[in-house]
């Protein structure tokens, strides 16, 4: 009797956090890809081209069907998670680091530094992000590293804005003034006194940006500007699927569902964090 109540609470807590579990499951799938993918994602089999889900050939089952080169969709989906997740994580980290550094410097140092840095932020924000990403990829060329660099270049101003506003709000608080009066260097004040107090809203931004980065990476790959073939990526699978939408619906459907679920869970977690930590704007 006594254990019944807590247990049901625990169960409902597990259920309400399903986005987190989904994210965790996808991450696990990405890491364990070589062990759980049923087939080699790059192995072509021209005898098994464009087969519907459940097709079997020589002992291999194509659970989610095969693409135009006879590659297993499920395996490519699992390997594609690696690209989506690693690009998203790395670009969020990189843009977050740069943006937070710039925003905190502008908010703490004020004066000319503030004017120049925040103007720069405004300029970056006035170019639609995907266009900025496209023109930069057009210059640098596609590929895994370049996509991360481009996404970081495009998105750091978001973090800078938030870090700037938060730093401004906190820089005049007594504990900061005290630390400065005691002779702490600006770097020390920023890292030990200000950063811990503004990290919450920044985490919210990072979560929401994570979903966006997944979409951006898929979008660039869809346009042929992302990670290059034969590496499996959800965006490029969708691009193939677009061409075969009349004859092989499964090629575009499954990577789309995977993308949708990943982005949805990131957005849901972000929304929860907004409720808990406060707005990240």
């Amino acid at each position, binding site marked *: 009797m006594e254990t019944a109540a807590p247990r049901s609470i625990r169960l409902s807590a597990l259920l309400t956090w399903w986005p987190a579990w989904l994210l965790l499951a996808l991450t696990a799938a990405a890491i364990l890809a070589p062990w759980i993918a049923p087939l080699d994602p790059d192995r072509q089999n021209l005898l098994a081209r464009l087969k519907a889900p459940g097709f079997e050939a020589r002992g291999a089952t194509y659970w989610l069907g095969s693409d135009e080169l006879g590659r297993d969709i499920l395996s490519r989906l699992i390997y594609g998670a690696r690209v989506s997740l690693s690009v998203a994580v790395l670009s969020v980290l990189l843009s977050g680091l740069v943006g937070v550094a710039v925003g905190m410097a502008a908010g703490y140092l004020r004066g000319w530094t503030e004017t120049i840095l925040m103007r720069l932020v*405004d300029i970056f924000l006035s170019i*639609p992000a995907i266009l900025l990403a496209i023109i930069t990829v057009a210059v640098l060329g596609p590929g895994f590293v370049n996509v991360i660099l481009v996404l970081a270049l495009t998105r750091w101003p978001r973090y800078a804005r938030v870090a700037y506003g938060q730093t401004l709000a906190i820089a005049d608080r007594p504990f900061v003034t005290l630390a400065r009066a005691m002779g702490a260097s600006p770097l020390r004040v920023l890292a030990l006194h200000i950063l811990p107090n503004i990290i919450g809203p920044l985490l919210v931004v990072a979560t929401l940006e994570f979903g966006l980065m997944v979409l951006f990476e898929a979008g660039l790959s869809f346009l042929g500007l992302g990670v290059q073939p034969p590496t499996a990526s959800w965006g490029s699978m969708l*691009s193939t699927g677009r061409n075969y939408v009349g004859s092989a619906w499964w090629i575009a459907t499954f990577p789309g569902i995977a993308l949708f679920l990943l*982005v949805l869970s990131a957005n849901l977690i972000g929304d929860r964090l907004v409720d808990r930590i406060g707005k990240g704007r």
Partner: protein
Amino acid sequence: MLRFLLHRGGQALIAAFGVVTLVFFIQRLTGDPTALLLPETATQADIEAMRATLGLDRPLGVQYLDFLRDMVTFDLGRSFVQNAPAWDIIASRIPQTLQLAAGALAVALLIGLPLGLLMALTRGRAVSRWIMGLVLACQSMPTFWSGIMMILVFGVWLRWLPSSGTGTLAHLVMPSIALGLLSLATYARITRSAVLDELGKDYVRSARARGVGIRRLVSRHLMRNSAIPVISITALEISQLLAGAVIVETVFAWPGLGLLTVQSIAARDFVVVQAVVLLGAFVTIFANLAADILYSVVDPRVRLEGK
């Protein structure tokens, strides 16, 4: 008012100048932009000629000033692939993209605003939570995927709508919905929070106490007072739509600016890509300026806050 206009106008100009500078430096990221500006078939003579036109032998500062001068005179350069001024190439595609953006904006406003209002009025009830779920789904839906799924269902299976191309109103339906979904979600959320803000105010409570019906309250008071955040978000949405058009146009083979950009990248026609990006940035800057001005007309307090 004049001071406010000058102040905001000046800011917009600085932003435009900054964008031009940024694009110039992105173009030089690899050091020598000749390879970007010429097709792969270019001969050594072409390359030399291009280097001379760009003045690559001159200092970077001089090249930059030249680029600025071109921009001020609205000379977006010449496409060597199509052998035509970049502006002419772009201009021929603008009407198509405008059509698509208008369609998407209509979808977003006509569905997003009522959904937001409904969510605010039914707050705390199951209806509201379901609509919020729907809105979140719209927000997380990759544009290219919703586009492909619509093609599959309405184009291939049901054969109700054409799956690609342009010409009739029927061609516009699916691309508009695909492009409008994200903005729809934004509008619904903004409207919800704006209306909720208003609902908590005293005048609403006293109007309710006087026996003013909910319908009259919404049409007379709430709609107008919640308009400000909606207006300001529209400026942002316009640039969102422009950017989203790149992908939606590719999905539906819609011959607008977005498809042009993608084709130009494939054809290594960098001048055109650059021109589209600059245009997109200028439109965004202008839309933000227009929103700020509109904002200050609707709510005069804004003018003072800037000081």
